[in-house]
């Protein structure tokens, strides 16, 4: 069977983030959600020795370095907004599945920003996955 080259890394994402989902539940039994987010970023920093780049980061284009930083900032801003939504009186049973719909942004903007299109079959797969994410997060 042919396996797309992105599939194995995607499985690593699923497994690690799946465990994160469980740990998040456990960590917020002992910490406030904000503290849990702060310690999560501390965990990111602990990985730095293993990720130390073999060549200077300044050899890459400024545009892509900025995009990387912006990507990280938006990831954390999203996590903060999720916390803020919960604190503002929203029900977790609505907010969690709602925010799990973030791939929709990529599906909608992909053709415009990334010049990528999806086949009809992939579209059906994306739809199934989005429904699954919403139901699983409920």
């Amino acid at each position: 069977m042919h396996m797309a080259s992105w599939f194995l890394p995607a499985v690593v994402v699923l497994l690690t983030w799946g465990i994160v989902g469980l740990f998040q539940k456990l960590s917020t039994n002992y910490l406030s959600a904000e503290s849990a987010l702060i310690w999560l970023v501390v965990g990111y920093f602990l990985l730095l020795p293993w990720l130390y780049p073999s060549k200077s980061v300044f050899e890459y284009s400024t545009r892509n370095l900025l995009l990387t930083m912006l990507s990280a900032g938006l990831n954390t801003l999203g996590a903060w907004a999720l916390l803020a939504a919960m604190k503002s009186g929203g029900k977790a049973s609505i907010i969690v599945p709602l925010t799990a719909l973030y791939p929709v942004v990529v599906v909608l903007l992909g053709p415009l920003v990334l010049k990528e299109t999806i086949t009809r079959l992939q579209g059906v797969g994306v739809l199934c996955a989005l429904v699954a994410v919403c139901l699983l997060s409920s």
Partner: protein
Amino acid sequence: MSVKGTLKTKWFWYSVLCIISWGGWTIFGKLASNEIPASTMQFLFPFGCLPVVVPLIVSRHFRLERNAKGISYGIGNGVLAGIGSFALFAAYRTGGNTAVITTVTALYPLITVVLALLLLRERLTLLQVLGLAFAVAAFAIFSL
């Protein structure tokens, strides 16, 4: 609550901000991964988190709870989330379709639900069982 009522709530707009932010995170990550290797991107990642995390620490007057278990889980979260984020950038760098990769990786609640079932002895709701079926269908389609 009516749609009009929901549109007036703070939580709805925070949720929209979350969706847009995470959409931007993946799109910008994909664009940068065309040039920068996944390991270097993940090396830079925590520094990009600082503009959000530092004000959060300051707003708490540098006070964090000191529960050892909570801190261990929190740091463990960061390590695992970092490995996952590195793998996401690696997946983007293969040149696969970004929408498909982003949607497949967003299925991680599948693993959380299964782990909660096995380790925390939680029970699946009917909706979650239905969700599992849709996830299996999605994986079957993407493996065609």
